[in-house]
Structures are given as structure tokens and as C-alpha cells.
């Protein structure tokens, strides 16, 4: 069931992004306010999420339980993800407010990027809590199974939110780069 949901939700998200790219990809967008540090942290978030997802879904898609090396890789990725995601949330929180204004250089996150980032933060919070709470002596087997299910679906949500976020960010960077290129070209021509 979960493997099916994972497969179809990822395919559906990719299709939606493709459709969006075809229909609205050419729209003008402000450049995102992404510095070098936040760019690096963002890369860590993406890498750790990719590793965590691959180590979890690999065995699951093969109908196996995650254990051994896969579980170790998942746990290691989790540590990196917790730190990098938290850092990113703190750094980008101001820019992702619903009423955030463009910075001095006119850079701002689009509404879609802000929403995707907020969803990623919510999913990330659920992922972290559903991973840590089973480590406390508070929950029995039944509750632990519920928490595992929460962890799985929150993890899927995090992946999907980051996919959409990365896509929208790429779109904004692509447009702003194109605009910047056009301006530079006009200046050179002049």
C-alpha cells in the first residue's frame, strides 16, 4: 500500500510540475534571496533527504523491512537532515513569511516557494517527532506502529514538498538568470 502511494504520488508530482512548467514556466519571477551559506545548507537538506528516502524506500519497494546497513544509512542521514533542515528553517523563516517584502536587491521568494517551504517544515517537524518519540519510554507497540506510519507518510510529504520547492526555486532562479542575462546583453549592446 505504502509503496504504491509513494510511487504514484511521486509520479503525480512530477507530472504536475511538468504541466506547470509547460503552462506557466515562462512567467516573470523575482530572484530568490539565496546566499552562499543557505545554498550550502539547502544542498545538505536535499542530499540528506535523498539518502534517507533511498535507504527507506529501497527495502520497502522490495517488500522488505528496513534493517542493517539501510537502517544505519537512514539513521545517519536523519542526523544530518535534522541539523540542516532546522538551520534552513531558521535562516529562511523571515523570507518565507506570507507578508515578506523583497529585500534591498529586489529578491523575494514566490508565494508557491513559501508555501512549499512551510509544508516542508511542517512535514520535517512530523518526521523528526515521529522518529524521536518512539525512542522514549512513552509509547507501546500499537502507538509505535502508528508513529512509524506517521513517519513514513510525513517523510513522503517532506520529499514531495522539497521536490516542489526545489522546482519552484529552480524556476525562479532560471527566470531571474534569464532576465539578468538579457539585461547584461542589452547593456553590452548599448
Amino acid at each position, binding site marked *: 500500500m505504502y509503496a504504491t502511494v509513494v510511487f504514484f504520488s511521486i509520479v503525480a508530482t512530477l507530472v504536475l510540475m511538468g504541466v506547470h512548467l509547460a503552462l506557466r514556466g515562462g512567467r516573470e519571477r523575482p530572484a530568490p534571496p539565496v546566499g552562499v551559506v543557505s545554498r550550502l545548507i539547502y544542498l545538505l537538506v536535499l542530499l540528506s533527504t535523498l539518502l534517507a528516502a533511498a535507504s527507506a524506500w529501497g527495502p520497502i519497494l522490495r517488500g522488505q523491512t528496513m534493517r542493517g546497513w539501510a537502517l544505519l544509512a537512514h*539513521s545517519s542521514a536523519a542526523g544530518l537532515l535534522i541539523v540542516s533542515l532546522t538551520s534552513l528553517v531558521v535562516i529562511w523563516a523571515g523570507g518565507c513569511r*506570507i*507578508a515578506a517584502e523583497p529585500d534591498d536587491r529586489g529578491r523575494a521568494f514566490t508565494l508557491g516557494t513559501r508555501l512549499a517551504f512551510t509544508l516542508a517544515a511542517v512535514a520535517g*517537524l512530523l518526521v523528526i*517527532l515521529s522518529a524521536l518519540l518512539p525512542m522514549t519510554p512513552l509509547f507501546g507497540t500499537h502507538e*509505535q*506502529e502508528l508513529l512509524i506510519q506517521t513517519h513514513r507518510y510525513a517523510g513522503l510529504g517532506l520529499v514531495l514538498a522539497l521536490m516542489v520547492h526545489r522546482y519552484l526555486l529552480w524556476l525562479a532562479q532560471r527566470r531571474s538568470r534569464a532576465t539578468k542575462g538579457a539585461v547584461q546583453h542589452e547593456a553590452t549592446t548599448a
Partner: protein
Amino acid sequence: MMTVDHPTYYVAASAMRVFRLAMACMVVFWTASVQAQGIFSHSRSTYPHWINLMDEDGQVINLRDREARPYSPTRTCGRCHNVDAINHGWHFNANFGTAEAGRPGEPWILTDPATRTQLPLSYRKWPGTFHPDEVGMDEWHFIRQFARHMSGGGPGYGPRKDGKATAGTSNTDKEEDDPLATPEGRWHISGYLENDCMMCHAGPGAYDVTEWARQVQNENFKWAPTAAVGLGRVVGDTRRIPNDFDPEFPEFTPGAQLPQLQYDASKQNADNRVFFDIVRKPAAERCYYCHSTHETGEQSLPRWQRDPDVHVMQGMNCADCHRHGIDHNMVRGFEGEAAISPHGSAVAALSCAGCHTGVQGSDNPQLFGGRLGAPIPEHKGIPPLHFESLTCTACHSGPWPQPSSQTVQTSLAHALGQSDEHRHPADPPHITQPVFVRNAAGKIEPHRMMWPTYWGVMTGDQVKPLPIEQVQKAVTRVLRQQPAESAEGEKARPESFPRGWAPVTKEQIAAALTALQKGLEEGQIAVYVTGGRLHKLDGETVTAIEHTAAEPYSWPLAHDVRPANQALGARGCMDCHAPDSPFIAGLVAAQPISPNGEVIRRMHELQNIDPVLWEAWARGFGMRNAFKIVGFAAAGLIGLVLLWLIMQAFSAIHLKRRKPVAELRA
């Protein structure tokens, strides 16, 4: 005096057999009608067993008759109970070719200190065990060796031909029973060792297991049930009676005499009946005779400090879980048994998980969990992954694991329950526990383990044990003559070691292998398997190699059960996940020790766990608390940021709504 050569002997013997056959047929007709199903009272109260005793020919015994023969449990109990079905029960059917092998269990261990042999035997062909035939042990010798801790039946009914016992295992096929026609063993003298119902079903104090063992040792198989239940006194033994002795005509063999039986006539009432103090469900004490263990390791607790099984302390008996019907197919209680049992979910409800946690979604009320008030475990803080990787017994059963597995003695292997002034903690065979290994389902469970030690023959890569008699002839003298090194390094005679099991030296092995090699064919190599290695001659020196034949045999242990507060993990994850946790890093030494060096394995090797992975996990668990602190701090921070974002959003919406009003006012 008439001898076996005298023609009259054959006439008389034939007449006697015809008479016995006729008597047997009468009994067969009388009992056949009730025997098929048995007679039942269908009451919870135990039926008062005032019954007639019957001998092996089905004749009623008068205890006042000085010539009366020993009583036969098969005939006596079989008048009302389906002995055929009972004889196919788990405890009695091992040598039936059609019997299920079942989950591997404790083997019978052929222990011969004189040849330094400890070999796991089983009729069930469990992987790692040997069929008694492979070491030249027929049913008669098997019974003589091990029946001290058997209730008879199975091999006690003699060699099986075409899947059927030579002797009658029921009261309906006695006409096939002709002991003199039995070529193997001395059944015609010792009699058959029938399945003695009273060994388990006698009331408290009504059965003497040591008397049973004594009669078995004296080869008085036929007399053992009578003596053990205290119906009479048996004097003499059959051990010195020559093989050609005919019990029907003892006068033909001068000097030979069958044991004399003196019944206690006071046990008989006016109706010629005897009271049998029967319990339907045996007490745990009765099971303990064959299923006890005695921990003898250096770090084992003395008996008075050990806790018994939590279930027994709560007033339960073994038979409360290990139940069975008239077929005596005992519920063994392991996980997955229901899949191979004809009784299905009824069996599942008698396993640890079946009784305590139940089976989710089951329609069987006995599988709802918490059966008979059993506590339903919550397992707080234990990720469910553990229940896919571990059996219940891994955390809850057996002694608390020590840095090294500890030696243990068992009833079957060490004749516990018999008084013996020479008992020693190092008595062979060498068994160690708890050893955590994977079972057939891939789960880790605690086992008892032994390393096979035997003299064998290698053909190609196949190793088979040599018949024990052949080994005794070739090896015993070699091992006895040469002094062995004691633990202190002094020369010592084997007699100074427990049961004479002195460590063997390379020189002794070389001499013994040379002696054994003489009797082998070309292409066959004499080998000695011990201490986890296979030893063979390379020229004149002994070399030791790793070989599958030297791999240990292990079987699950499930008792004594410890409650949650004393289970592994009660103190936290580090009970098992610490780098030096005995559960995963404990040492298991091969015993007896090979003269070429001790073989020591760590638990994780036996569990097929990648050592690098284990090391990584062990280091990772050291940072677990830090991980939790950082994780919760991160979650708190993200939560605060999200809260702030939500407040910002509300604030923005609020300002947006108020803006037109402000503009109007302006």
C-alpha cells in the same frame, strides 16, 4: 536336563506360542471395540482408577499369585484408552519413519568419556544430529543407554520393520509380537520397554523414577513399570543372561534366571483390582525429571539464588501451555507452530505471543490476547522492528547472558534426577548457554549449544561418525595409556578428570587416527572432530581444519521465563546495543578444546551479523542520547518558527482587513 538342542524343546516352545497367541486373540477381540476410540468419563473430575492389572498377554493379574508376571501398561491402560494414538505422540514417535521431524530440539547425546565422544543423536534427522544407526546403535542399545529419561514406547517397542514396530505398540497387534523372532538386541530377555503412562500421570509420590532408571540399567525393561509404580519388588537383573536364553524354558539355560517379581498384595482389593493414583495433568515436578537444567558455569548463580519460571511462580504447570489431546501431540509452544500443526489456531493461542498479545483481527476469542489474565505487554519504547528480529524468548528466557556463555547440564544429557556422588560441574557432555543464534525464521533466539566430538571417517568431503564399538576397540586403549596434560600443566591420568574426560593431546589423536585408519578402505580417511575443528593426519602430524562437520549443534531454550522487569532491555537499549553487550559480543568457546587451539566465536558471528555493521551500530548507540537531545531541540525550534510564521500570517490577514477601514477613516 533338556537343552535347546533337545527335540522336545521345540515342541514345547511351539505349543506355548500357540497358547499365547490364542489368549492374545481373545483379548484383542474383547478390547478392539473400545480401543479404537477409548472410554471417556467426560468429567472434569479424575475417574477413580480401580482397575485390573493385565500382563503382556492380556491376562488379568492376581497380585497374590506368586507366578504373576509384570503388568503391561499397554494392556492395562489400553483397555480403555487409545494406546495406538498415544504411542504416536511427540514423546514417543521419534523413531517412526512417518513422524514429523518438527522444530529441532534437544538431542540425545551419546557420551563416552573413554573415547572422548559426545555426539548428538536423534531419530528425527534434525540437521546437525546423527541417526543412532549411523553409530551402530540399534533400538535395544539406544533404550539401554537413554531410557533412564524416557517413559518407554518408541524404540522401547523394538526395531521397526517397514515402519512398524516389531513388538505391539498397541493392544491389537500383539499377535505379531514374537520376541524370539527379533534378531537384534536382547528383547526376548529384557522384554520391551512399553510406554509407561504412569511416569507422567501418576499422582504425587506415586511413581519412583529412580527405580525406573535402575530397572532400565539392569536391562529389566519389562519389569520397570511394575517396580517404578511400587506395585511390587523386582529382584535380579537380566544383564548376565546369555543371548540364547529362552524365557519360556529357563531351565534349559543353567545358571540363568529372570528377575523375580514379588507383588505387594495389599494393593489389591477384594475385586482383584488395584488403585492407580492418576492425574490427568501432570505437575511441573513430573516434567522436571526429564526437562531440568543445572547451571554449572563459573558465573552461574547457586541454586538458591536462581528464580524459577515466572509462570510456575504464578501457579501454572507446564501442561497448562504444553497441552495435547489423546493423541499426545504436545503443543511445543514456539512461534510458527500453528502453521505446521493440524490443530491450527488452537496451537497459536498457546505460544508466548498467542497467549499474551494475541493475534490482531482473529475471530478466535482465545487469540484476543491476555488469555486467562495473562498481562498484555506494552513494550514501551521498544521499536516494533525488534519483534520482527527477535523471538520473545530472546529477551525473556533463560539465564541473564554473561560475557561468556556458561556451561549447563541437562536431565537428558547428564542424568539429572538420579543420585550420583561423582557429579562434577565439568561432567561431559559439554553444553553451553545462552547462545543467541538465528532460528529457521531468521529471528534471533537463545539456544543451548554443543560441539560434536567424535571419531569419524572422511570420504571426499563427507564426514560420518564411526560405529562406537569400532571406536572403542581402537581408541580407548590409546587414550587410556598415554597420560594427558591437565589444566595445571602436570601429567595426569584420565581418572583424575571428571568422568575420565581428560583433554586429548595431538600425540594421542595421531595414535588413535593411525589405529582407526587400519580398518578403513582406500579413499577413506580417519578423522577426529572436536573443539570446532576437524583433525586428520598429515603425514605423522595432526592438522586441524575448519569443516562443516565440526559446526556446533544448538537447540532453543525457552525456560525459565523472566518477567518484563528482568528481561533484556529492562535497563535500556544498551542491554543489547552496548559494544560489550553479551547479547551480541558475548564469547562462545568450543568445548572440549581442540589441542590445536581454542575456537572462540562471538555471538554476532553466530547471528550472521556483519562485524563492521555491528561495530558501527555499537558506536552509533553511544551517541543516541545526544541525538535525542539535538533532535528534540531541533523539533522545538522548527515548531517555534512555524508558530511564528502562523502568527505572521494571521497578523498579515488582520492588517489587510483593517487597511480599508483605516483608509476610510482617513
